[in-house]
């Protein structure tokens, strides 16, 4: 089910692929200038596995081509299919793992490190990481104090997409920056005759993302991490507070199609409800991949007909919740370490950044590399968040709780969307399921 979150990313890249023709000429020069300084790996053959297909795979291959140009090593790319962990697990047990793989979940990285399936990274990679990345990304790539993964690609799931026309009709000039503002904006939109929100309640994961954003901002990082590990209960006052905040916005008359309609809208439907030919709502919340859905399934143009603002601050700071793909080494050899080091460089990230549909957590990437303002804005909030970046909580939980259609957190939040009045019951139901899944 998590793979669904990945699917729309392809669209983003596809569109961005158009930018390719423009940037292709410029790309070559970088490689040449660095070519002299790189270690020569001529004759070395490397295999890289990642979840990306289609346009994303094409773009990633361009990044790999940069490595070939720099070092002379031959790199082949293998798509893993939707379940990276299962794919790699079978490859490792079969004795033929790829040299480098991109892991989409931090839990998998820790699990693989414990099993000894991935190798610690060398000191030069560590140095480069310290130089280019906020501490949080180094922590996310580490297990037991050793660095295993370099986060190459980040996903930003703290974005509100909106239809500027609806905002104009309601006389709203400034996108909201605080939760109170957002609630007020929703009220104004509703007064103006627009339905403020489209919520993809049919996909439970969008609701967990909603909750995570509110919680990360209202309760703070420490509580967030504790709740992610189920060290505090879901009946904690901070959880109830976050649910109460959500209820301020999840009112049936604020939702396109009401609560019932929302509960049967999946993510693409929720996006077309805002940006389609017959708009049903003014705002929709989800991650950077919404851009791909807008371009893929509607006539609307991102940047003019569809704009974005960061998820407003509920507490002191706005939340930045998301995910990332970490490059890890599965086979101990010089080439693999070199490749991961290359992926930690600004040079590698810049290649894809220029092609679009990509967000790098690498501080050294020049914001000017991104092809348009929206993508620059998305990347900027990830970099600006620094150590306040929070990994998607439901991805850190056991799948039975955080990743299963029709049960656990997905289902409980769907029930809450249907009946946002009863915060205590929702918290109790969440806690009951969490206790069962975490077995503590």
């Amino acid at each position, binding site marked *: *089910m998590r793979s669904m979150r990945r699917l729309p990313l392809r669209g983003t890249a596809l569109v961005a692929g158009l930018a390719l023709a423009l940037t292709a000429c410029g790309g070559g020069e970088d490689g040449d200038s660095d070519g002299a300084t790189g270690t020569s790996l001529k004759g070395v053959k490397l295999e890289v596995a990642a979840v990306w297909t289609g346009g994303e795979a094409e773009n990633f291959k361009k990044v790999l081509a940069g490595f070939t140009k720099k070092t002379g090593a031959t790199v082949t790319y293998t798509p893993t299919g939707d379940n990276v*962990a*299962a794919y790699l697990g079978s490859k490792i047990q079969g004795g033929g793992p790829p040299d480098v793989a991109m892991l989409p979940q931090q839990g*998998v990285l820790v699990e693989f490190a414990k099993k000894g399936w991935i190798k610690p990274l060398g000191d030069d990679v560590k140095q480069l990481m310290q130089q280019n990345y906020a501490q949080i990304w180094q922590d996310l790539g580490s297990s037991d104090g050793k660095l295993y993964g370099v986060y190459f690609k980040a996903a930003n799931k703290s974005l509100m997409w909106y239809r500027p026309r609806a905002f*104009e*009709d*309601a*006389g*709203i*000039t400034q996108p909201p920056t605080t939760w109170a503002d957002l609630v007020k904006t929703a009220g104004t939109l*509703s*007064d*103006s*005759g*627009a339905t403020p929100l489209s919520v993809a*309640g*049919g*996909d*439970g994961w969008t609701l967990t993302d909603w909750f995570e954003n509110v919680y990360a901002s209202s309760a703070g990082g420490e509580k967030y991490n504790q709740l992610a590990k189920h060290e505090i209960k879901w009946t904690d006052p901070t959880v109830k507070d976050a649910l109460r905040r959500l209820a301020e916005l999840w009112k049936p*008359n604020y939702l396109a*199609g*009401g609560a*019932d*309609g929302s*509960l*049967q809208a*999946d993510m693409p439907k929720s996006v077309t409800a805002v940006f389609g030919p*017959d708009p049903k709502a003014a705002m929709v919340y989800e991650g950077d991949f919404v851009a791909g859905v807008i371009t893929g399934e509607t006539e609307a143009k991102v940047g003019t007909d569809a704009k974005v603002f960061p998820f407003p601050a509920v507490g002191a700071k706005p939340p930045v919740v998301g995910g990332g793909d970490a490059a890890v080494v599965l086979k101990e050899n010089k080439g693999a370490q070199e490749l991961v080091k290359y992926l930690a460089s600004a040079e590698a990230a810049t290649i894809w950044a220029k092609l679009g549909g990509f967000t790098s957590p690498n501080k050294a990437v020049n914001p000017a590399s991104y092809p348009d303002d929206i993508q620059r804005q998305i990347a900027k909030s990830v970099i600006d968040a620094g150590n306040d970046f929070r990994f998607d909580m439901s991805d850190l939980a*056991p*799948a*039975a709780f955080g*990743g*299963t*259609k*029709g*049960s656990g957190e*997905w*289902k409980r939040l*769907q029930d809450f969307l*249907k009946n946002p009045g009863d915060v205590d019951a929702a918290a109790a139901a969440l806690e009951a399921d969490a206790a069962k899944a975490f077995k503590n």
Partner: protein
Amino acid sequence: MAERPELTETGTAGPAGAGAAETGSGPSAERGRAGAGRWLPSGFLAPALVLLGLLVAYPILFTIWRSLFDAGGDTFVGLDNYVAMFTDSQTFTALKNNLIWVLVAPALVTSLGLIFAVLTERVRWATAFRLVVFMPMAISMVAAGVIFTLVYDRAPERGLLNAVVVGVHDVFADPSPFPGARPRDTGPLATRAGAYETRQQARPGQTVTLPLVAITPQRQRELAPARSAQARPGALTGTVWADFTPGAQAKANQIDPTEKGLGGITVEAVSGGRVAATATTAADGTFTFTGLADGAYTVRLPAGNFAQPYNGVNWLGPSLVTPAIIASYVWMWAGFAMVLIGAGLAAIPRDALEAARVDGATEWQVFRRVTMPLLAPVLMVVMVTLVINVLKIFDLIYIIAPGSSQEEANVLALQMYLRSFVGERGDQGLGSAIAVVLLLLVLPAMMFNIRRFRREQG
């Protein structure tokens, strides 16, 4: 998973195997006497036995064995998985739904099949009709599931069934003039039981303002500007208008220059709980009550003015999801029942029917007293086959039920899959326990089938 090969094997190969064993016994006895070796029959049986053992017996035994271990498969937990299963509310819902399925679906499919078969027997275009009814059987369950997600879609602009329901509804009920319009939380109007009322009462000769919001911008552009009602002696006047101007400069509860009047709204003057007079607003939003007796009146806008457009039925909501999926199952399988029962009908000796008719029986009596008893064995086969089929239903529910009501639509086979294989930490111990229970539920139906076949052979 173990019961799947078992089901198909027993359904078809079972009776054939039994037949083979019986016919085989004769020659083998002769050859035994002839001294050709008593191992020969075992030799002939061996391939079938090995296959059955590998594909049926071993998986069943392994599943039972596996159900006694924990998720990791290393620790023996006894019957803990079974306890966990029966104390889990999700599994209980699944069990309950399975029961509903078994009670409703086969009976419904069989009776529909019977009706179709009896009716088409005498129709001219019988073959064409039967072909059409049978056609859904040619579609895979998954494809049928996808088709029905489109049929049952909540939104009338996408869902076929709701489009029909809404269309029919709108023929009989006129849509309200301003669906969804409402007063602000603070202002002269309060909401009571869906209708909007003035908080303060007014007397004839006074003027009231009734501001509403939430009228779509598109709609507002079509409307005429609002006008303040003039006070008239002896009459209660007022304005109903869309009290929204973009931007902060506009004042709430005041008729600003660009704001539009709401025409065609029914307004009531209420005194002591009774409607004293009714008026309709003009295009500029104004209305007048004349001829009111002196006194204090509450001005009310009845709920009918603002009723949301009828949106159809929530087919895939928690309460209707199981019946909706059963209906899609009936659509798929009615053809199957019809064809089998049709074949049974064709095999009924005509002279029995003729004899009854000659004896003066009505058509209904012929059907009840002659056709039905003769058809009973076929109906039984169809029913039992369907019961087995329904117990392992999975695909339709997996595809049709949206995530938000999957729990309410859950059945054992789906629960088994979800528990065993979904997520990186699937619990195959618990999944196996569910599979074993499912097997136990299917067993009686299979026994019944086997016995019946035996009796027929005998």
